[in-house]
């Protein structure tokens, strides 16, 4: 499996009315052919901005600075003009957005919206395009596709609309689909249906998917590899087993333990992560998670942790992995000494 998409050291900062906001700070990852990569993180971590930068969808006037490399099938995308990017956007990469309500044009029939892309990129006649559109609607599991073809978005339910968005994304046989929180706005039973469709697409059409989500359950359901983002940086990455069963970074661990488990036997108090993520208007110079981390050390406040390779697939960025870091027991002792000293 060769790398379909390679992102190296992506850095993006945006303009806001109070200054520069460093939304993405040096992100690296790789997406292979026929796999689902999940980007997990909460609001403000930079996952959406990363996706939009790859797709070239960020409005130019919002971008203050942009650097790094985005290679798609070996071709460097960073620095390309809008018209050159457009060649890749429709034909090879496409995006499915979060809110099906606002992503579809309410005044155009569904069918029309699907064939728009087909007609433009593949230069087919309307008749052939319509045929393809109906096939696509069938592919995403919409019953009576010929009827639905002629309907308007408001005549469809949320789940249907999301499926139409997926159909539109598929219309030009892309190699990569970026889905930004595609199921967050949907009911749980509909979400299950949509995830099934995405899984099916991956197996049948060998489409790679970058799935952006904050829901670790969804990740377990569909992803092969995962990257965890916090405050504009990648803090951990690995296979889905690595991340969910053997999490290393304190943020990943804290995220997992803050979730209620429907399979838990007794009622245990939830363990939230106290505090709020740092404002990227003035990001801290050390590890961004330090103020909320149970294991914070002096060094965590002073600089970003280096990359630690835990296995072939598993990488984490945490000072706890440094060889010089004292053991848990030692740390506890030091911490108690520290507390004692403060109280004296």
């Amino acid at each position, binding site marked *: 499996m060769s790398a379909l998409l390679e992102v190296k050291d992506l850095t993006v900062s945006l303009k806001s009315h109070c200054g520069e906001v460093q939304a993405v700070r040096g992100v690296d990852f790789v997406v292979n052919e026929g796999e689902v990569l999940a980007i997990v993180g*909460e*609001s403000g971590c930079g996952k959406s901005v990363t996706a939009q930068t790859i797709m070239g969808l960020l409005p130019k006037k919002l971008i203050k600075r942009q650097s790094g490399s985005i290679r798609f099938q070996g071709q460097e995308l960073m620095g390309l003009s809008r018209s050159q990017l457009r060649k890749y956007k429709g034909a090879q990469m496409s995006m499915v957005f979060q809110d099906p309500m606002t992503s579809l044009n309410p005044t155009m029939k569904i069918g029309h919206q699907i064939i728009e892309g087909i007609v433009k990129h593949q230069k087919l006649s309307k008749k052939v395009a319509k045929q393809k559109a109906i096939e696509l609607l069938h592919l995403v599991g919409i*019953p009576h596709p010929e009827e639905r073809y002629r309907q308007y978005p408001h005549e469809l*339910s*949320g*789940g*249907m609309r999301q499926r139409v968005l997926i159909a539109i994304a598929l219309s030009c046989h892309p190699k990569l689909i970026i889905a930004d929180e595609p199921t967050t706005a949907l*009911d*749980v*039973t*509909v*979400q*299950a*249906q949509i*995830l*099934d469709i995405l899984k099916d697409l991956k197996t049948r059409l060998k489409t790679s998917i970058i799935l952006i989500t*904050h*829901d*670790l*359950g*969804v*990740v*377990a*359901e569909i992803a092969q590899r995962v990257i965890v983002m916090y405050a504009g940086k990648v803090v951990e990455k690995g296979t*889905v*087993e690595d991340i*969910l*069963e053997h999490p290393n970074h304190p943020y990943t661990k*804290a*995220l*997992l333990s*803050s*979730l*209620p*488990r*429907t*399979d838990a036997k007794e*009622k245990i*108090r*939830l*363990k*939230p*992560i*106290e505090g*709020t*993520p740092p404002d990227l208007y003035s990001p801290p110079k050390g590890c961004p998670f330090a103020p909320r981390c149970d294991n914070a050390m002096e060094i965590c406040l002073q600089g970003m942790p280096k990359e630690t390779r835990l296995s072939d697939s598993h990488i984490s960025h945490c000072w706890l992995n440094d060889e010089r870091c004292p053991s848990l027991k030692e740390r506890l002792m030091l911490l108690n000494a520290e507390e004692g000293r403060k109280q004296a």
Partner: protein
Amino acid sequence: MTVPLLELKALKKYFAIGKRQRLKAVDGISFSIRKGETFGLVGESGSGKSTLGRTVVGLYEPTGGSIFYEGRNIHTFDRKEKREFNRYMQMIFQDPHASLNPRMTVNDLVAEGIDAYKLAKGKERQERIYELLEKVGLNKEHAKRYPHEFSGGQRQRIGIARALAVNPTFIVADEPISALDVSIQAQVINLMEDLQEKEGLTFLFIAHDLGMVKHISDRIGVMYLGNMMEMGKSEEIFANPLHPYTQALLSAIPIPSVTKRKERERILLNGDPPSPISPPSGCPFRTRCRHALPICSEIKPEWREMDTEHWVACHLY
């Protein structure tokens, strides 16, 4: 047996759509909530759970049926009692961006109820505001700021402080954590649990996230298209779901574990929920139910108690 804090009898709320059609958002719901408990109400979009919450709290007038507070029909309240009742029943809203007036400072937002009900004045009033902010994990510094300067989780906490300011007995929480980040959701849930213990509050917790509902609720009710399908103790519903809809709902919850996921049976519902303007005849779930029988399209199933405190409306039983 003590009188339940709140009791609903055949509660209905219909909305008129145009001249001829009616949207039956809540179509005959009966259950009661005891003092100090948390009742979780789950359902998907179109189930009517939000409408039920708003009707219970007094934002909507019921179209039919009645609501009893501490045993008395609220319809019989005089003006003074109605106003007191309005104060006792408070609400926490879903959207942290839309539930706080962007033009008001946090101080003013929290003080609104105190001022309207004349609960404190002058220095005492300001101290009370600070006390409330601290109760929800914020501090005095935050009082002068505006909502847009806070994160979603913090805004939700401001909303909770605002609701607590008038000393309510009953709080309807309408999807209070759906719009929040996962790690923050736990903060708000823990806060709610702590406050419930300290202040002796009763909650109606409306959500579509079953994981959280199971965690925080003592009893759960499952709604579908304006009707209650199943109701019972939290663990009971999860361990032994009787209604096919409940079973499908539970099987659809994504579990954040690769190993546990493989052990579960998946029930996929086909199709979409029908519209509440023209619900199916008989049992509203029959169009998507894999066990549908002929009787299901003719008669609406009876609401029956199957086990201690475990109620179902389904022809299978």
